[in-house]
């Protein structure tokens, strides 16, 4: 328990914030406890290392400001050209999709209906129009039997 207490004293706050009472408690304890002694030494050394770590200072190099401004201008130029090319590409995409839509509409309006009629004509032997209108002239001249055959598709059984 006492080991835990000493270690938690070391970890609860920065080493520099340990007060006199804490240090006395720690020193009394580490005299008998090797584990806590090495933890205490390591905490002391960590503190020294960190102090040295933050003590190192660098000054800005002579042309630092010029370099940052140049990078800034470069980035702005890249952003500008990028946004222009983005708009250009978007406009191109919009124009080509509109052209494609117009072409499709034209195809559906002018080409497909004619094809449909032609293909319908080609595919069916008889159409209602042919039967009713196209063949009216022939049908007028036909006999009753031929007429029935044409309309019902059945030959009249000859009467016996």
């Amino acid at each position, binding site marked *: 328990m006492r080991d835990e207490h000493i270690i938690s004293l070391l970890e609860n*706050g920065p080493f520099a914030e340990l007060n006199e009472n804490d240090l006395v408690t720690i020193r009394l304890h580490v005299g008998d406890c090797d584990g806590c002694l090495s933890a205490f030494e390591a*905490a002391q050394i960590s503190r020294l290392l960190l102090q040295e770590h933050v003590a190192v200072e660098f000054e800005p190099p002579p042309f630092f400001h010029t370099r940052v401004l140049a990078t*800034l201008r470069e980035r702005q130029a890249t952003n500008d050209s990028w946004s222009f090319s983005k708009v250009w590409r978007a406009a191109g995409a919009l124009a080509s999709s509109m052209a494609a839509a117009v072409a499709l509409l034209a195809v559906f309006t002018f080409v497909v209906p004619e094809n449909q009629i032609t293909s319908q004509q080609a595919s069916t032997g008889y159409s209602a129009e042919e039967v009713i209108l196209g063949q009216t002239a022939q049908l007028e001249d036909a006999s009753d039997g031929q007429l029935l055959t044409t309309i019902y598709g059945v030959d009249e059984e000859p009467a016996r």
Partner: protein
Amino acid sequence: MELARAAREGDESAFEEIMRRYSPRVFRFAAKFFRQRSLVEEAAQEVFLKAFTELGSFEGRGSMEGWLTRITTNTCLNLLRSSKRRPELTLSDLSHDETNWLDNNLTAAAAAQHQSTERSLVAADLAGRVLQTLPADDQLVLTLMDGEDASVKEVVNLTGWSESKVKVQAFRARRKMREAVEKLLARGRKSGSTRTA
């Protein structure tokens, strides 16, 4: 505030003046997190590029210095996060000077010896190497709280983390740092006793 407004409106010379005034502070602050000059410069440059694009968010309620320090903290944290963490540091990774420094600081007279610039640089290098084995958030909190003696509130203000996150992070980071140093010391003692035997 005048400078910030002018810079926001595209006055390049105003922004240059901001850099001239605050770059020494930004460099000093960034140097606490990186040992290589190139990384400090990279961080400082990124800070001013970010500052330029975010000038609109600077409302002038706090100081420009405080605002830039917060940007520096976040930039350094991002750079620490993106840099590769070192695997565990072993005694064989240490230079002769670093091993000597550890040996000498184990003695009671260590604090008094701990004076010369050369020795300080050795210690700073060693600190950097030990810190590099820890996660970025741990490095940041240790540097600020245990190195710079920043309070929990100051770290909250700089990072935007909650108070409890700062406390927990500092507690864990201290433990990790202490354990890493303790391992080095234990191995040093072992190899020392082997040498004397």
